[in-house]
């Protein structure tokens, strides 16, 4: 193909995730993009494939003590503690702003009990402008002695089934990487009625200040995110894609189009960008532009041809 013809096509970047039509496969990861508004001075939100909000709970949540974050090698730990305004205030105060954009809004949510999960989902079900729900199952189940829903296939299946009954929106279940066998969790989620899976949430980690002998974050243990975790995330997405038929959204350490492509090639239909937003508020815009460039350079007319193109 000559240089001139190479430049003549505009590759299709649009993807379909469980019926959601996305302009492109790039969206922010929950908790790293606020309620969208915070980054609107830096980025045209209409450019994004979707907007994913901070995690919502039934009641407002105070979050953890400070310090809540610390930098690690090519990553960061956070223990924000899921601070949020509560689902009702979100619907009242935050959705109005997002209605200004034609980008699908995915609302991330969680609960401390099965019932709370169900109730939040129900309250979001008839909210116009909410395109899909992303269910964070990396939360401790208060009734089950604090065992994380997402680490027990039985507990996960139960809460997902319950939520499934209370929402008609596409339901994305967000998996935690801190398990022995992600394929078991993925299959349990599929059977319980998830429409899509997203992964990974943060790896559990810890850092110590050797001078004060204290943990660097008040909560002692936090979630590790950023480029450091990408190889673990790519591996888990690869394993999940092989275990289930559901569409998968890849997350973990993406900072560039090449990073995003790793996930798409192993089979993710879309990806979320998290920590990289903090480092570069325009990261997602650059990734979208570079994805298009990659397709043009490689003569790929439709990005869907790249998805799952891994050669083993």
């Amino acid at each position, binding site marked *: 193909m000559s240089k001139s013809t190479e430049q003549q096509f505009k590759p299709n970047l649009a993807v379909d995730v469980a019926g959601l039509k996305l302009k492109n496969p790039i969206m922010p990861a929950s*908790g790293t993009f606020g309620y969208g508004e915070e980054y609107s001075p830096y980025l045209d939100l209409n450019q994004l494939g979707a907007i994913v909000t901070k995690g919502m709970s039934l009641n407002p*949540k105070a*979050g953890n003590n*400070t310090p809540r*974050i610390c930098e690690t090698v090519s990553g960061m730990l956070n223990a924000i503690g899921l*601070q949020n305004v509560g689902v009702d205030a979100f619907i009242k105060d935050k959705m109005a702003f997002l209605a200004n954009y034609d980008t699908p809004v995915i609302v991330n949510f969680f609960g401390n009990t099965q019932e709370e999960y169900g109730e939040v989902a129900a309250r979001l079900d008839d909210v116009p402008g909410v395109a899909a729900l992303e269910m964070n199952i990396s939360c401790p189940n208060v009734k089950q002695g604090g065992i994380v829903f997402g680490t027990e296939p039985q507990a996960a299946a139960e809460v997902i089934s319950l939520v499934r009954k209370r929402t008609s929106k596409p339901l994305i279940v967000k998996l935690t990487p801190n398990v022995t066998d992600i394929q078991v969790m993925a299959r349990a989620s599929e059977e319980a009625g998830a429409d899509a899976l997203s992964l990974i949430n943060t790896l559990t980690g810890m850092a110590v200040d050797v001078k004060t002998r204290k943990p660097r974050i008040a909560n002692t243990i936090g979630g590790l995110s950023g480029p450091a975790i990408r190889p673990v995330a790519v591996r888990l997405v690869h394993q999940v894609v092989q275990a289930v038929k559901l569409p998968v959204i890849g997350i973990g350490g993406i*900072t560039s189009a090449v990073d995003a492509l790793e996930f798409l090639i192993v089979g993710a239909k879309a990806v979320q960008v998290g920590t990289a937003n903090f480092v570069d508020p325009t990261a997602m815009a650059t990734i979208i532009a570079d994805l298009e460039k990659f397709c043009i350079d490689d003569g790929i007319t439709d990005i869907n041809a790249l998805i799952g193109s891994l050669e083993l």
Partner: protein
Amino acid sequence: MPDLKTVVLSNQEIAPGYYRMKILAPGYTQLSSPGQFVMLRVQNSLTPLLRRPLGIYRVGFAPADCDTLPPKEFVELIYKVVGSGTEIMRELEVGAPVELLGPLGTGFEFGAAGTEKIMVGGGIGLVPLYMLAQELVKTSAVKLLIGGRTRDDIILASEFERLGVKVEVATEDGSMGTKGLVTKILEQQLDVSKQTEVFACGPMPMLDAVEKICTSREVPLQVSLEALMACGVGACLGCVVKGEGHTSSEPNYLCTCTAGPVFDATNLDWKKTAAIKMAGGGK
């Protein structure tokens, strides 16, 4: 609050461990107000990963390299080398690429024109007070009380004097100015002053002492706080402090990066704020 890919204009040591960096920053003279900060990406690399929050010391125009070019609009930072990011900053040469997000945050309220203004600062806590002083001297008598352990910690005094600010110094070892804590001279000042407003920036124990003094005398106080920050724009909720009336059932967390870094002291849950140990950033 543009996100600029820009360059270093100059970078010099101004006192042992303290450096002054000028960065090309179109728009900053119009956009910046006293007490605001920037998030600086010190190099395009994944270690260190996060941007560093740094107060705006000054904005202005530097002469262009030749007559036919317009002058260069700059932001000036003063930083202390304490860890990996500031180590890298120290090495940056003229023309080095950096990424600059800002101006960010809520700065100082200037208070009533005419009433006496007392600024209290120590170390890099002086940084955000400079632009404040530039404003305050226009309408009021301004004093700056600088505290430090030894004379090596006292920086920027003559810069403030040049603005017309009356500077007093206290060092713990008496190597410069009054011997003792800066709060000692603050109390002396407040004993003789009538209508005063106080503006403070420095280490938490100093702010805590200043708060006690001002509250007991019902003197209005604004403080500029530090917090570990990931985003600088209110998105990560990493940098919160507890606001007035905060409880866990009725939380009132305020983002240092948006509601602050400058707070009216009465808007903070002061006891809990003073208890925060920044545990060093570090890795």
